[in-house]
């Protein structure tokens, strides 16, 4: 039984291996990029817009609203990262309706790569917002005793992100495969429909969690600035 699409190898030469995960990942990236290019080639601002532009606008507005609801004031800075994460995982998980397709997210290497992206993006946005020292101060947030726990949580939530997505998608495929050998007539279809729902929910959760982590990094470093401003104002008033 093949546990992950990593084990289907097309071409191997020494260190370099091209397996099913890589091929599907690049195919999905290609589809997403070509679709985005084709749709944004001729954008209109008329009353009547093309159907594809309407779909794209709905998606962009929806993601922007979600990011704003969580607490990031300027979603335009973050939608490039969070939106691509969501769209990639969503597409990868929704394509299971095609027969013979194995989602690349059912391989731990893909999900680990995505989680590492979040792991790097959190300090990136934090430093971008408040400078290196401001971000590093957020690790000492309540007191300096919390420093090791903050560091551990940084690593463990990355691990959790990777294993959660991998486990959910892999378990969906596994259950369908097991059901095919037990009751092959109608139940795999139902479980596949459930897999579509789970895949979409997981994509949503991955995006939301990335946003929550980025929000925490950005806000924590912001709060260190705010009290100083307030005290400055007070002293000015008193003076």
């Amino acid at each position, binding site marked *: *039984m093949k*546990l992950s699409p990593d084990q289907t190898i097309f071409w191997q030469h020494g260190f370099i291996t091209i397996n099913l995960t890589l091929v599907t990942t690049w195919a999905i990236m290609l589809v997403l990029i070509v679709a985005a290019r084709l749709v944004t080639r001729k954008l209109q601002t008329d009353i009547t817009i093309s159907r594809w532009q309407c779909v794209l606008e709905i998606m962009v507005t929806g993601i922007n609203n*979600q990011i704003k*609801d*969580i607490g990031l004031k300027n979603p335009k800075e973050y939608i490039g990262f969070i939106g691509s994460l969501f769209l990639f995982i969503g597409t990868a998980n929704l394509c299971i309706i095609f027969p013979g397709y194995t989602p690349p997210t059912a391989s731990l290497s893909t999900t680990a790569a995505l989680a590492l992206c979040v792991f790097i993006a959190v300090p990136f946005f934090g430093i971008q917002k408040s400078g290196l020292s401001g971000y590093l101060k957020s690790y000492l947030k309540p007191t300096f005793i919390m420093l090791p726990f903050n560091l551990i949580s940084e690593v463990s939530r990355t691990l*959790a992100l990777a*294993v*959660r997505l*991998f*486990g*959910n998608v*892999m*378990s969906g495929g*596994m259950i369908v495969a097991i059901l095919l050998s037990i009751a092959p007539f109608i139940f795999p279809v139902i479980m596949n429909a459930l897999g579509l729902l789970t895949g979409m*929910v*997981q994509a*949503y*959760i991955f995006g*939301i*969690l990335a946003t*929550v982590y980025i929000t925490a990094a950005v806000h924590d470093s912001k709060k260190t600035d705010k009290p100083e401003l307030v005290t400055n104002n007070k002293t000015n008033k008193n003076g």
Partner: protein
Amino acid sequence: MDSTTLIAVASIVTAGFTTGIGCMMPALGEGKAVSSALSSIAQQPDAAPTITRTLFVGLAMIESTAIYCFVVSMILIFANPFWNHIIAK
């Protein structure tokens, strides 16, 4: 019983227990979370989007424990390092 059989028995039984207990407890936790979220949505329908989003994030957190158990039992069954070690010998 030689060590190969012992490893096989221990792995399979532990995998079953891991998935069994690891499904039971998060299911209880998720049930509690969903029921309290539903009752608070019923009390305050205006706050439904916020509650739903927080519920999803919380459910993902709770469910990840179940997923860990599942992954551990999958490793025990399909990619058992001890079993591979014995087989390779």
